[in-house]
């Protein structure tokens, strides 16, 4: 249980990193990310994992 929580937290951090870096890259160089990666999907994963982290913390 603790391990899952740790992994989820790490995923949450890395997805935050992905979102911040990708958004910055997309701002300064339009298309560089969107040409290959759908940022909406990353945002959805990030939200789901964020909710799971909160759920596991509560337990």
């Amino acid at each position, binding site marked *: 249980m603790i391990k899952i929580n740790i*992994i989820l937290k790490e995923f949450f951090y*890395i997805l935050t990193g992905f979102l911040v*870096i990708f958004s910055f890259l997309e701002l300064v*160089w*339009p*298309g*560089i990310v969107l*040409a290959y990666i759908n940022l909406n999907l990353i945002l959805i994963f990030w939200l789901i994992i964020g909710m799971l982290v909160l759920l596991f913390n509560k337990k």
Partner: protein
Amino acid sequence: MSLTKLIMQNIFIKKIRLILWLILIIVVGFLLYQAIAPDGKVKYTYDFSKSDKINYFINKLTPKERIKIINNNIQAVVSEPVYFSLNTLRKFDKAKITLQYQNPDNLPLIEMGLLKGKTVWNYDLKPIVNKTLNQLILAWPAVYSANGEMLLEREKKYQTVDDFLKNPPPINEIAYYNYEFKNKFFLQNYKPTNQENKISQQLRGSYQFYTYIKNENLDFKFAFSSLNKNKNSDPIELNLYYQGKLINSQKLDDKRVLIDDEKKTDNGKLHLNIGNLLEGVYKVELLANDDIITDQIIFKQSKLSFINRLWLAEGVKNVELKTDSNIVNAQTINPASLQIIKVGDDNLMLNKTYQQFNIVSNKATSSIKLEKGDVILSGNGVFSFDQNSFIEPVARKVDNSLDVNANGINYVIANYKQPKEVGGWQVAEAEFDLTDAYREYFTHQLGATNKMSFLISAPGLNKENSPDSIYPPQERGRQEGEVNKIIIGKIIVELSGKSLIDKIKGIFYDKN
């Protein structure tokens, strides 16, 4: 929790963190690599059978009204032209575009073009298929140059393309295709008159014309006005070319303050007066949007022929022109301009707005009589208001309306490769120089993301299939309501440009 367990957990966290951040670095590295394309080469493919797949680089064919989805998501072009745009993350210099297509209706001419400028929407057209040339290749002997240029001769006379270029036959025996044929055209017995001539018929938008100079000044006075139908500014550019090279350019900025009431306003005058010019043919090009009316042209030359297209403005009445065009196209956007146009002895019915009607003539020259203006006339030859000022100094283009026998063509010079057949598809390649392509950029970007526009054209392909169309629907194997089409399979774009090393070298060595 014991100390050992805590240490183990910390190691575990660090391992996971390391792996995940490594993944982030690799992904960012991959994206930067793709965007920079360090070797200066990149390849994008759009498979049209997977129409639901989003492709960032090659966009869908538009407008969708000209596209018909048939079995298995296959996209068929039913009216021309259709457009697609190409997004690139950096600048490239050259594009090789491979088009995989099917031409079930055997359309005689298909071309692909790159948008070079938005003022007059000029496209650099390259061949996909030219049926006339395909037939000539089978029938006439051919010689090829080292650069891939092809010379077709009705009867074998020249051994090499260079021989032909050094000692060309009369211009009226030559046709060209996708080749810049620079001939020195001289009029025997031409004498400058120095008499003032005038074209009072108002012309709308852009046009080009040829004139001839011999021991005289090139002297043209243009008077312009603006219809103010659109709110954009209406700049005018006047360019003079000799043997394909720009030798003089003048610009007239839009003087008006923003006017909303669509009143016609004076837009100024331009005077092109140049002396000490070599004898020969000169091309004058006027670049302006459709708001601009040329009210009159006063000139001292005795030869003047408009090239390929001219738009007679509203208000022009009972005008007669002379043309050597094999095909005369007419179009209007004004319901009051619908009429019957006399082309030689034939009638060209202009009975619908926003639709192009055409008539094919195999006569050397024909007269065109119009009762009303606001009509766009176009064709593959020249148009002149006066029989005496008619001049056709260039070779004919091998297009869908050229009849080599009727026009007495004995030589064809072209840059053309026949499409190959691969697995039931025709595969053709077109190469474009992107250095002067029209590009749209994002604002406030550090990268060089840009968008270019291409078209696919097949003259005469129109789902309306009007009775005047030069390609009536074939009866054999046709279901009712079925229209001519081109089926597009794949578009493959191979881009090449400066490599990263070249760019770095350029920063240090090119700045003198």
